[in-house]
């Protein structure tokens, strides 16, 4: 019998089987189900319709509800959706709810989950959001599902999955200071296309991955979905285990696994990260890859630094390195992913000098509240939304037409370093010009 990949091992264990193979249809037990304000109301509706008004969720401790998408808006319908979550939480007495307007409020779900200790190696985490794959950075199987599937899980704790074949991406070497995880994943998506991993697992491996911090690994896994991947995954190492233990209040035991030496990968790609250059995805698709030096000098109207993929401390530290002591030339929006990140921006200092927030404000950037904000457009009063056909360079993860608001707006995806460098010149700029 051939060995199994990390993804196959986790799925087999949750199906109660000694082994599984790609293509097997299996029923698995779910460890955590996460939902938010956009898909929560529909999920709750499906749950009530199918299990009855008085039904109870399968395990209160395994349901996590994180409002994050449409928070700082006057839109009455959006606010109503948060009320739907509130009454469900009250009815079910759910302990893991991060309500708006309370000091438990977090912001973007995929960053809130690990911060609050809901991500553990070896588990299965499902969420009603395509970027749920972010949590694969903790050595677990994590993927996005719809309302019907989530409603089913709420009632039963189970779902059916088809075991995906695994693609392996090996990064060799240590990342140079002008590159970030965003460059790596945009390079991969440019190579395999935004459907290149459809129905497949993407495992990231190699010393180039394990020298990255946890947040950068999250960025890699976050964008597995932009290649169509079912999940992104990185085996847990000491950094992962230390992080998880420092955050997890439950103290639940977890299983650290890795792909067997003789595991079968459907295909393997190897990258020498020391040879890569900063990458941009041009409008209107994350696989529309160009190198920054090819687009050098193209004018932009706006810069945006935020979202689950580009609004973490690592992202802001990188941006601040470039922005410190300079002034932006175009409107620049800074949106911390979570309230914890926002707090840290106000306390952490750059080289013992100003705080990160002070660096951004004195560079002329506008600071938003922790949430998804303009990453997905949203109601027209959303902070940073592209309400007119602007050209924006952004640390977000998706640039399909209309994603950040206006259908004709043009969004360029890039690393926080490249976005900060571009904000300083008003044109697409290679961060190496400022890092020299």
């Amino acid at each position, binding site marked *: 019998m051939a060995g199994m990949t990390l993804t196959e091992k986790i799925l087999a264990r949750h199906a109660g089987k000694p082994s599984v193979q790609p293509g097997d*249809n299996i*029923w698995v037990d779910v460890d955590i189900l996460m939902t938010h304000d*956009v*898909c929560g*109301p*529909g999920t*709750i*509706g*499906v749950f*009530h*319709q*199918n299990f009855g008004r008085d039904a109870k969720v399968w395990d209160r401790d395994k349901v996590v509800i994180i409002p994050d*998408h*449409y928070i700082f808006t006057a*839109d009455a*319908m*959006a606010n*109503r*959706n948060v009320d*739907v979550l509130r009454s469900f939480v009250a009815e079910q007495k759910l302990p893991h709810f991060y309500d708006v307007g309370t000091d438990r409020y977090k912001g973007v779900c995929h960053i809130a989950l690990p911060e609050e200790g809901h991500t553990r190696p070896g588990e299965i985490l499902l969420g*009603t*959001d*395509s970027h*749920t794959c972010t949590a694969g950075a903790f050595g677990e199987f994590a993927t*996005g*599902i*719809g*309302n*019907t*599937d989530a409603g*089913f899980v709420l*009632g*039963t704790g189970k779902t*059916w999955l088809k075991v995906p074949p695994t693609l392996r991406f090996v990064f060799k070497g240590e990342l140079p200071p002008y590159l970030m995880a965003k460059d790596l994943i945009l390079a991969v998506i440019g190579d395999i296309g*935004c*459907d290149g991993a*459809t*129905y497949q697992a993407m495992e990231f491996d190699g010393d180039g991955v394990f020298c990255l911090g946890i947040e950068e690994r999250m960025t890699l896994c976050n964008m597995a979905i932009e290649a*169509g991947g*079912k999940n992104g995954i990185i085996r847990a190492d000491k950094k992962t285990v230390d992080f998880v233990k420092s955050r997890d209040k439950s103290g639940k035991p977890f299983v650290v696994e890795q792909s067997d030496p003789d595991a079968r990968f459907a295909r393997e790609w190897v990258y020498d990260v020391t040879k890569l250059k900063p990458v941009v995805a041009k409008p209107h*698709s994350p696989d529309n890859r160009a190198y920054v030096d090819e687009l050098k000098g193209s004018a932009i109207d706006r810069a945006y630094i935020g979202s689950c993929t580009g609004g973490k401390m690592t992202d802001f530290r990188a941006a601040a390195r470039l922005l410190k002591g300079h002034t932006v030339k175009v409107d620049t929006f800074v949106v911390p992913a979570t309230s914890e990140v926002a707090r840290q921006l106000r306390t952490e200092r750059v080289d013992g000098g100003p705080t990160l927030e002070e660096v951004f404000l004195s560079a002329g950037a506008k600071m938003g509240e922790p949430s998804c904000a303009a990453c*997905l*457009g*949203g*109601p*027209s009063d959303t902070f940073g939304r592209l309400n007119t056909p602007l050209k924006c360079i952004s640390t977000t993860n*998706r640039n*399909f*037409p*209309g*994603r950040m608001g206006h*259908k*004709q707006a043009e969004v360029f995806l890039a690393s926080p370093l490249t976005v900060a460098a571009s904000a300083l010149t008003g044109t697409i700029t290679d961060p190496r010009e400022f890092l020299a």
Partner: protein
Amino acid sequence: MTLQPVIQGKAYVLGDNIDTDQIIPAQYLTFNPAIPEEYRQFGKYALAGVPAPQGGLPKGHVPFHAPGDEFVSPYRIIVAGRNFGCGSSREHAPVALDAAGIKAVVAEFYARIFFRNSVNGGYLIPFESVKRLCDTVCTGDELRLDVAAGKLENLTARESYELRPLGEVAPILEAGGIFPYARSKGLLKA
């Protein structure tokens, strides 16, 4: 929905990588699909995010709704290229197409979550074509889809096209979604 054996109606043709933000733009996600009156609203905004030149190929600039009915489209079958339904996991996407009266999509292949949502929610039948059809079929062509036989006939162009078998998802679609399927299999209490 139990599977209709034959679906006949007009085609609306789209290209590659039609993502869920184009199928239902984010500003309309505040409607709750679990409330029937709001479910209807999704029909109105279905495909509202498709840039006009790409809406209704080959010519483009074809509105998805007729002037007389803002909720239900006159089209019944969407024909599209590669990777239909990529992007966000929002189930509002197949909901919007269903609310607008779409019974089936015929694409080269789908993004995984959209496919799964369509099947498990029982909103529409996501067929895969053997050959790329979005360069062949024209918006407005009258199509006849034989669901059981997996054949698509273009009554306007007098052509027929091969579809891939629905395979393991056929029983879920026949049952009308994952809940009725699980009940019929004894996985859930009836």
